[in-house]
């Protein structure tokens, strides 16, 4: 079942006609002409769609909160700041079918009553930014964006806002600060963005992939959508397979699928790359947990589970890899990307990185070993935002599973 990738490589992302010919902007027309905003929110709620950025928050509920909050101004933001190492699904959507995102934004903005929308794009995505700019220009010409969308009373402007590539700015409140011209740092919650977000106004921040699902739901109905995937988290997901797998790259699969199937089914990963022997898989990006071969049969979906799906990336690690390199790469990434706001993350990621260097150089002391445990504990339990916790996830698994290889 393809929802997101259906027309990839069939349509020309630089030409809006190519999108409309496949039924594009039909959902927007339906949402504006045949449905009222409450109906749209209800439909999304009913669909069971959950945020694809990683947290898996029900999208309809989020919209409902913002729609309910009375305010003169509201904002709608598409989060395209994708910066998890090895993840590039949002980039692909922007590149291959930009109007799908724009249509999602327009439906969302209409549903919650936002007159201004932003696409917050990772500063490294220059090509995709240009594609989106062209797409927006064409949508404006067709009066899909602007003072009167499809001749209706609904008006909306969409602005592309370029981030500077900080990982933390993918966190919704840090993203808001970044747009406001402040330092990209997470804010205290509550208030949650749907109540008081950008410039203190009700704001929706949705991941680009989440929004790309919206046209399908509106057009085909929540019921159709909710029958795809798992009952707790319906729909399909863009999985990014990386590492020692035969077919690397983006694969769309229904939620609830197991990692086993994703890696070995010829529809998706097609098994291990030749000559490689499976060791473990990291599920959900650099902040994801490590799954050994025996755990690959767990279904991947949003909601409670041993292996949080996160943004949907799977790094397949084979036995030729050196765990010390991986440890260093994780620690290096989170040390570099800590925003520096709270103490345990700022200092904890630094000390972990320091120790990772020593592990790599086989120069690790007894004190280091004790400290690792304390640092991982404080990162997991005391940081201001989830980034600190993320920094410890893979390390904790690695310490438990491979300590003999780490301290040999």
């Amino acid at each position, binding site marked *: 079942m393809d929802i997101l990738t259906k027309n990839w490589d069939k349509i020309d992302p630089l030409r809006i006609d190519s999108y409309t010919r496949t039924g594009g902007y039909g959902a927007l027309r339906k949402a504006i002409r045949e449905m009222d905003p409450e109906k749209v929110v209800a439909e999304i709620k009913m669909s069971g769609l959950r945020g694809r950025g990683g947290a898996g928050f029900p999208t309809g509920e989020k919209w409902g909160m913002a729609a309910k909050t009375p305010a003169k101004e509201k904002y709608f933001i598409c989060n395209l700041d994708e910066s998890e190492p090895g993840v590039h699904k949002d980039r692909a959507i922007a590149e291959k079918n930009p109007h799908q995102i724009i249509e999602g934004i327009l439906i969302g903005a209409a549903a919650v009553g936002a007159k201004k929308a932003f696409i917050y794009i990772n500063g490294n995505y220059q090509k995709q930014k240009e594609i989106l700019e062209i797409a927006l220009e064409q949508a404006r010409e067709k009066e899909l964006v602007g003072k009167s969308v499809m001749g209706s009373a609904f008006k909306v402007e969409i602005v592309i806002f370029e981030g500077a590539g*900080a990982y933390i700015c993918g966190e919704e409140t840090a993203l808001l600060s970044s747009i406001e011209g402040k330092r990209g740092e997470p804010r*205290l919650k509550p208030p949650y963005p749907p109540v008081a977000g950008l410039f203190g106004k009700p704001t929706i921040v949705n991941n680009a992939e989440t929004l790309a699902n919206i046209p399908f739901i509106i057009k085909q109905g929540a019921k159709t959508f909710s029958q795809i995937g798992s009952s707790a988290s319906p729909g399909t997901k863009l999985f990014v397979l990386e590492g020692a797998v035969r077919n690397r790259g983006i694969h769309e699969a229904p939620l609830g699928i197991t990692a086993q199937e994703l890696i070995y089914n010829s529809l998706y990963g097609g098994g291990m790359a030749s000559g490689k022997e499976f060791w473990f898989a990291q599920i959900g990006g650099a902040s994801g947990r490590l799954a050994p071969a025996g755990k690959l049969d767990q279904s991947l979906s949003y909601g409670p589970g041993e292996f949080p799906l996160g943004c949907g990336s799977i790094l397949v690690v084979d036995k030729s890899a050196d765990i010390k390199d991986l440890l260093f790469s994780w620690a290096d990434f989170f*040390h570099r990307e800590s*925003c520096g*706001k709270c*103490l345990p993350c700022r200092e904890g990621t630094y*000390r972990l990185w320091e120790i990772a260097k020593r592990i790599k150089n086989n120069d690790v002391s007894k004190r280091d070993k004790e400290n690792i445990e304390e640092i991982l504990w404080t990162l997991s339990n005391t940081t201001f935002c989830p980034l600190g916790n993320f920094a410890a996830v893979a390390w904790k698994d690695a310490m438990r599973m491979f300590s003999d290889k780490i301290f040999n």
Partner: protein
Amino acid sequence: MRIKINNKSYDANPGDTILSVCKRNGIRLPTLCAHPDLLPSEGVCRMCLVETNQSNGLVSSCTQKISDGLEVKTETENVNRARKINLELLWADHAGKCASCKRNGRCELQDLAKKYDIDEFKFVPRKNELKSGDELDLLKNNWKHTVFEEKNSCISRDSQYCIECRRCIRICRDMQTVEAYGMNYRSSETNVGTPFEIPLDCIFCGQCSAVCPTAAITEKDDVTDFEKALADPKKMVIVQTAPSVRFTLGEEFGEAPGTFWEGKLVAALKKLGCDKVFDTVLGADLTILEEAHELIQRVKNKGPFPMFTSCCPSWILYAEKYWPEFIPNLSSCKSPQQMLAPLVKTYYAEREKINPDQIVSVSIMPCTSKKYEAQRKEINGSEYQDVDIVLTVRELARLLRKKKIDPRALKEKKFDPALGISTGAGILFAQSGGVMEAALRTAVEKITGERLGKVEFEMVRGESGARCAEIEVGGLKLRVAVVHEIRNAKNLLEEIKNGKSDYHFVEVMACPNGCIGGGGQPVPTGPAVRKARIAGVMARDKKMPLRKSHENPVLKKIYREFLGHPGSEKAEELLHTKYINRSKK
């Protein structure tokens, strides 16, 4: 609402945080980023974590609002583990050169480290690499991002001691609206600094140094110069002490805030070897006479109104930098420090036949900005630099401790009478509203020609950030306002500019509650501490035999023998100054 903390039930108000309930009930929680002047807290230091029945895991008590049925545990295994590891991480991010540190014994991080037994070092301190500020060029090639600044005469910064609690950023932004500081760089290189690490460009109020938990931001240290002057037999060291200092110095030696320590202060200064100790309160009385005269002149000349007080150098600098259009509204009167000082080097020196060249004029101030004020070129009235050295209360206390002088053990002494007789009006300068009240006591009598029945002007007293009153004076309805903290001054200026307010006379103090909340006062500070200090000031005013500036007998004598009358040519030359447009626009 009632909540449970450690199985005991407590009253709480909606809107309370866990920390505020704990503080009210004497339950100690370690805090570093939280400060009573900086509410709501931002929860960045993660020291005050607790466990509750309403969340999984730990929550920061300074940000967690209370709710019905809340049960808090402040001393669980996890809470203690979090405190200890986070404190160790923080300690290793700090220079930890306690023995040579200005804030040794008065450092919040040091206190916590002691309390939670950080004696075994888990991590190698990472800021020790820097040896001195001389090695750094701030603008270039400073990849370590360590900031060391002593480029101005008021505030010193040394980021080796910085623990990134952000109090300075918040007080400068939220209370003073100056926004001199911000965070620079990211991750472990995150550093408090100025934009592009330009030298500090602010109003030098020093509130950042008063809230800094460590020695990362401190008053610029002028103790050495003072010691040098004391040791020089050719020099005559003449000291003046600000009105508020006698109410706060005691805190440095364990006394309660507001304890009246005038005699101890004078005794301690004499013990240090100061030749003469004069009272800045006399300067304050002088300011009142000149300022009342100026106000009356403005009433006669119909403006320009409002007339703003000019005692607070940070306020003056703020006006010069951000609101130059109001420069004509600033009273031309110098501050009490700068009124007394030229008299020392002219009137007093002439009378006592001292070569002014030999005089080292020192002032003990609650204020970091006074250091800057003394350096203003246009401020000098005598042919010399009127004030040579300015020490804050903290510096004086540090020197006394270093010299092993404990004022508690000293017999109280009196100011030298030549320039040491003062009134209650001058004492009031110590706090917000005081200049106004002192000025009214004089101005009303001067305008009406009648004796005031009641000298208190309660309508200008209080702790609110902006107060106003209308006073009938001989047919004139005098509209006055009192503001403290720059945020309130800014609001008022905007109102005046937009024609929404219309006053004759406005008192502005940059620091919270005026000088008793000054940037150079003892730490810790906060609303409760300042309230106690104010109570001390008020009680002293009541006890003074003379409570109106124009009744000061020494002043009468000085006018008679030397100055002539308020606003005379001599007074203009010595006691009035001019202001400079320092706006960058």
